[in-house]
């Protein structure tokens, strides 16, 4: 018997170690950004656009990048959602009787998911030239929208796949059309999962540098239309970190901290909202 107990203990120990290292890693990342960035975070940083001389360590902030990033990821989320939700619903309801096709779609999406974002950036750049649009918020939204779509679809697909067949069948047996099953039953049942998928895509979208490197351009102004260039937080971090001036480098950490806080706040808010919705239903 002793070895079975030992086995149990070893597995338990491994589990504790892996959980602990994950938590430590997360805390390490967060603290390092916090320690390095927080002292340089000021109201000025989040409320002002870069003034002349900002990149030499003088006054100004990264409001342009904050607003730009939010516009960009919000636009990309909406664009991507417009395709992702119908696709994942179709995969799990309309194409229910065609599992082969659905599996092929999943395979394609998994490949798309694995493609590095710089490739999407390059593709977006080509698309821009082809369509004749300049580097702009719109071009960025299209590129990031395409880039996060597989993430969103697979996220939604994964939760919809796990909805009990009997639930779908009983909705059909009441005489629902596929559309009614999709929106009245499937979406209701999987709202928390849909929210999580959107959030996952949002996190990837707002944090990605490569896809926006060529497509959004960069400006010190807050964009006021889709056709204008825009700054984004990841690019702001990138540019500032590359500066030889220590003040500017410090601001890169402050910008990274802002980015992290945005993602954290939105994650927690969405989690909270979907939990609340979920517990009301169940």
């Amino acid at each position, binding site marked *: 018997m002793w070895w079975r107990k030992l086995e149990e203990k070893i597995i338990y120990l491994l589990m504790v170690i892996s959980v602990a290292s994950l938590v430590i890693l997360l805390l390490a990342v967060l603290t390092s950004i916090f320690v390095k960035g927080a002292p340089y975070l000021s109201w000025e940083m989040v409320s002002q656009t870069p003034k002349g001389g900002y990149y030499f360590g003088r006054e100004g902030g990264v409001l342009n990048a904050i607003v730009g990033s939010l516009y960009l990821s919000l636009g990309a989320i909406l664009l991507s959602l417009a395709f992702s939700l119908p696709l994942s619903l179709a995969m799990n309801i309309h194409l*229910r*009787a*065609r*599992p*082969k096709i659905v599996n092929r779609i999943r395979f394609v999406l998994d490949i798309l998911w694995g493609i590095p974002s710089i490739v999407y950036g390059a593709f977006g750049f080509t698309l821009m030239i082809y369509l004749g649009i300049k580097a702009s918020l719109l071009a960025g939204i299209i590129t990031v929208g395409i880039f996060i779509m597989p993430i969103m679809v697979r996220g939604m697909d994964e939760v919809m796949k796990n909805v*009990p067949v*009997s*639930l*779908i*069948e*009983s*909705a*059909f*047996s*009441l*005489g*629902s*059309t596929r559309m*009614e099953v999709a929106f*009245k*039953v499937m979406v*209701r*049942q999987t709202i928390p999962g849909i929210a999580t998928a959107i959030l996952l895509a949002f996190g990837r979208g707002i944090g990605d540098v490569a896809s926006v490197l060529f497509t959004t351009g960069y400006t010190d102004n807050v964009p006021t239309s889709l056709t204008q260039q825009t700054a984004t937080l990841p690019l702001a971090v990138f540019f500032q970190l590359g500066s030889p001036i220590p003040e500017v480098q410090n601001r890169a950490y402050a910008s990274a901290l802002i980015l992290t806080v945005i993602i954290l706040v939105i994650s927690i808010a969405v989690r909270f909202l979907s939990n609340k919705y979920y517990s*009301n*239903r*169940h």
Partner: protein
Amino acid sequence: MEDTKISIQNLNLWFGKLKILNEINIEIPEKKVTVILGPSGCGKTTLMRTMNRLVDLQGNAKISGKIMLDGEDILNTKRDITLVRQKMGLLSQRPTTLPMSIFNNVAYGLRLKGIRGRKKLWPHVEKHLIEANLWDEVKDRLNDPASRLSIGQQQRLCLARGLAVSPEIILADEPTSSLDPISASVIENQFFKLKENYTIVLVTHIMRQAKRIADYVVFMYLGDVIEQAPVDEFFNNPQHKMTREYLRGAFY
């Protein structure tokens, strides 16, 4: 014999290369309880799912033959399949409540039929919950999520939900198999009352249940219909050797 509601003629069904149903011929009388009896895996459930065309959702099903419902072949109908399904309420082995309130579960089917607004829905919802013998237990908590009900209550809610689309037929697939004896007998008693207005097809492997509520029994084994007869004849004077063995409990 009584009027035939559903007439199944030479029905064959394959899943891929596997033959599940073999030359099925069944006459289902109107406003009676027809019990399809047989051991697990004999194709009872598949037969039922063919009747309301839920097998359509499984891509690899191949079907030949006819299922005539009121003189219309529903396997080859040009009519919208949702309208065919609304003629039949389905009660499955485990209750599957929709992710919404008790009220909305019953109202779901009514809304599909175009009845809108809580005021208009209310009398219908009440009527069907009474029909399913659930009203007294839930009348004060209609806005609670349906999933908070007990399993037995959930199954009656599913019955009410099915009745709300005003079907002519109730298909019940071992509806009491996950219920405690008391909830099960409540459901059985409801079937007694409901057969005044509905044609009921009940799938079960429980012989005593068949004896209690059937008017007409169909015995299936491995995709074949072995015997079909009125209930007294079936249990007292079975014609087929296999039926006699099953009734003796010789195999399960």
